[in-house]
């Protein structure tokens, strides 16, 4: 099949590129092995949360210029596209609060207040609790759901001057679920909390926290993966204002964002080859002419331009062999900060050098192969070398702004 652009990888970077290119009237397809790291996204996006010394960043817009020269933000200036990224999310029906001028503090699944750029509406942040003048919070968990850590959250709130009480609720449907061998995990719970069963949950919450007892309820984000409307409906049914707290993956807010972006992309006419993987590419001189996938066999996907947005180690786009790192599908060059033995820091909790490894690119983000740029193949997102999404809290920002940077470049070709 032939398209204007074929995108390899359907995570935040691939979907952002696809949407933006479809909006420009180009025909695109996305091939994606399976679901992406959006399924582990907590509902908050980072543009730049920590600087090179691991100090929290107050204003990403200011701090970006002080990053190392080989950081993708510094090499391309793409971080200036952050407002365009926020607009793309809004157009896809995803309401997120925040700005590139000032980070806010999200509350992590372990209860830590951490800097973030955008946070999904309805999620608790230190700012929205403060703005509402919250003095007393009720943290409500679910019986048997062990991924939620109310005491940790309570201690963070106490530091912000908010008194917290901890409660737990259940319903018949949740009790039945506990009997099943399946685990009580956020994404599993959210599948059963729909329709009447969500009404029963709201009643249980309203019974546990009487009106006037607390200024706000904090509840784990376990509602809405089946139907995003349910996410807002529980908030409306709660007698006390209710905010969600992030949970470990698979994470419902990330799934909601992923679902909205995917449906925006397909409504614009984009085609997704789901559950399929690019396994090889055909190169002609400095151009990629077609890619082969597992499912399509002898047929190939041809395009004028390609975007490699397949992620990093976690998504199997990069592979660590005993002596080196490789990109197995297209054989692209790797830019690695060190040789294989020095890629690991001794302390697991310190930034790991291997996180900065990625596909080597030229300043226009063309992929390098055999030491030379491929003229019609671009690299976006976590696949890029030079950023450490984990220690910098920059993953979503890099994914979205690199995708927009490339989409603009292709449109101007």
């Amino acid at each position, binding site marked *: 099949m032939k398209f204007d652009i074929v995108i390899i990888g359907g995570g935040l970077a691939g979907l952002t590129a696809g949407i933006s290119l479809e909006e420009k009237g180009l025909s695109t397809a996305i091939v994606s092995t399976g*679901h992406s790291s959006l399924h582990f996204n907590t509902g908050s996006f980072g543009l730049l949360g920590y600087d090179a010394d691991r100090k929290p960043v107050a204003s990403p817009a200011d701090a970006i210029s002080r990053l190392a020269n080989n950081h993708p933000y510094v090499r391309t200036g793409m971080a200036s596209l952050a407002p365009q990224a926020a607009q793309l999310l809004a157009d896809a029906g995803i309401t997120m609060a925040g700005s590139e001028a000032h980070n806010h503090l999200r509350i992590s699944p372990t209860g830590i207040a951490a800097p973030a750029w955008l946070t999904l509406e309805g999620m608790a942040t230190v700012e929205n609790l403060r703005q509402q003048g919250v003095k007393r919070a009720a943290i409500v968990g679910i019986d048997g759901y062990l991924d939620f850590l109310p005491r940790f959250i309570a201690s963070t709130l106490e530091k912000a001057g908010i008194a917290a009480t901890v409660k737990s609720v259940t319903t018949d449907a949740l009790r039945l679920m506990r*009997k099943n061998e399946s685990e009580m995990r956020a994404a599993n719970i959210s599948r059963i909390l729909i329709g009447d069963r969500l009404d029963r949950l709201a009643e249980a919450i309203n019974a546990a926290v009487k009106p006037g007892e607390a200024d706000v309820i904090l509840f784990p984000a376990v509602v809405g993966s089946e139907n995003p409307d349910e996410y807002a409906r529980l908030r409306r049914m709660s007698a006390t204002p209710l905010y969600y707290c992030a949970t470990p993956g698979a994470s419902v807010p990330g799934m909601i964002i992923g679902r909205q972006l995917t449906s925006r992309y397909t409504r614009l006419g984009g*085609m997704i080859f789901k559950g399929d993987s690019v396994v090889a590419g055909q190169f002609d001189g400095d151009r990629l002419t077609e890619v082969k996938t597992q*499912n399509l*066999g002898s047929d190939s996907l041809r395009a004028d331009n390609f975007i490699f947005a397949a992620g990093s180690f976690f998504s199997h786009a990069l592979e660590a*062999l005993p002596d080196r790192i490789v990109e197995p599908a297209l054989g692209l060059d790797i830019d690695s900060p060190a040789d294989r033995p020095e890629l690991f820091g001794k302390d697991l909790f310190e930034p790991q050098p291997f996180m900065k490894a990625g596909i080597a690119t030229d300043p226009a983000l063309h992929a390098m192969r055999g030491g030379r740029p491929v003229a019609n193949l671009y690299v976006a997102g976590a696949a890029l070398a030079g950023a450490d999404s984990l220690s910098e809290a920059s993953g979503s920002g890099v994914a979205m702004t690199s995708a927009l940077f490339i989409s603009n470049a292709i449109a101007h070709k």
Partner: protein
Amino acid sequence: MTMDFQEQNISSHNFEQCTKCTVCTAYCPVTAVNALYPGPKQAGPDGERYRLKDPEFFEKALKFCLNCKRCEVACPSGVRIGDIILAARIAHTKERPSLRDTMLASTDLMGRTATICAPVVNVALALRPVKYLMDLTVGIDSHRRLPKYSSTKFTTWFRRNAAERQKEFSRQVAYFHGCYVNYNYPDLGIALVKLLNAAGTGVRLMEAERCCGVAKISNRLIDEARHDAEINIAAVRKALAEGCQAVVATGSTCCFTMRDEYPHILGIDNSDVRDSITMATAWLYRMIESGDVKLAFRKDFRLRLAYHTPCHMEKLGMANYSIGLLRMIPGVELTVLDSNCCGIAGTYGFKKENYETSQAIGSKLFRQIAEINPDFVTTDCETCKWQIEMSTPYKVKNPIEILAEAIDVEATAKLNRK
């Protein structure tokens, strides 16, 4: 040395690649509606570890799996979860398949008998007392309208009306029609012959076609399934050796079973021909793209359609070909429905114990169809067609039928005459 060990110690179905992320369970259509089903992660890669100790682990729960493979499409790590579950069910379920399961599984035997007596069988199957009796005695849910049997098989129609004319075409494909087209829905086969002939392509039947085996596999009649599969693959090889460009199917489950379940579940090596077994829509799309085939459409053709992606079409990765073809028709306004399981899953939804689960799974899809209110629903799977027609007021057509109706036959034939 250690790396050698890691690289060579690969388990079946990529079991060891599981990172325990639970994404598969979040997309399993059964876990949302059946509180007794532990879900793909637990029944699949997790259960597999426990089964190393005790083969009976989760034995009772395994039968709830639809074998839809949506978990595999969702898994970021390439774990063949559905295969793990199916293989465990085959290896560890102790009960023998019941009379009902054997009946439902033997689609070609049942079809052969029923076609001969079609008028009687159809009336009888539609009668309330008969349905009630089937419900009671063999466990086929009485809410089910069993598919009607046609009084003329597709193959009979083909030999009488079409076989001779096929020799006129220099380009040939073999058609794997499947049991459903042969016994219940010859019109789809007839539409394919009309469409491909207009496109300058002869259609032939395979020398021996057995049921693809999906119903036998899911009802654990494995030796019988393997026997049929071997006959089918031999016939595919023969058709290709005799110059057919491809073996095309109009049912996504037949196509998927022959391409993937044969090697993964039945252990049959089809690697030499797998790529040539394809959906008719995929083959046609590629021919149009390469310029070998041209279609001319009727000017007066107008339809609002909603495309439903069958589970196995999603797994095959071929839905985009059907969607792409439908979008080529100038008068068609096409909405692609969110990809959700319809709930029938072959013979699964026909079993009394599964009826409610089956309808609950489909409800999301049925609701969306009603919101769109199309002239027709279109999909590449026969069992999805039954389920949607039983559960909604909408009629369902295969994309091949839509294309056959939409083309200007004369003008198309002229464009493709050599």
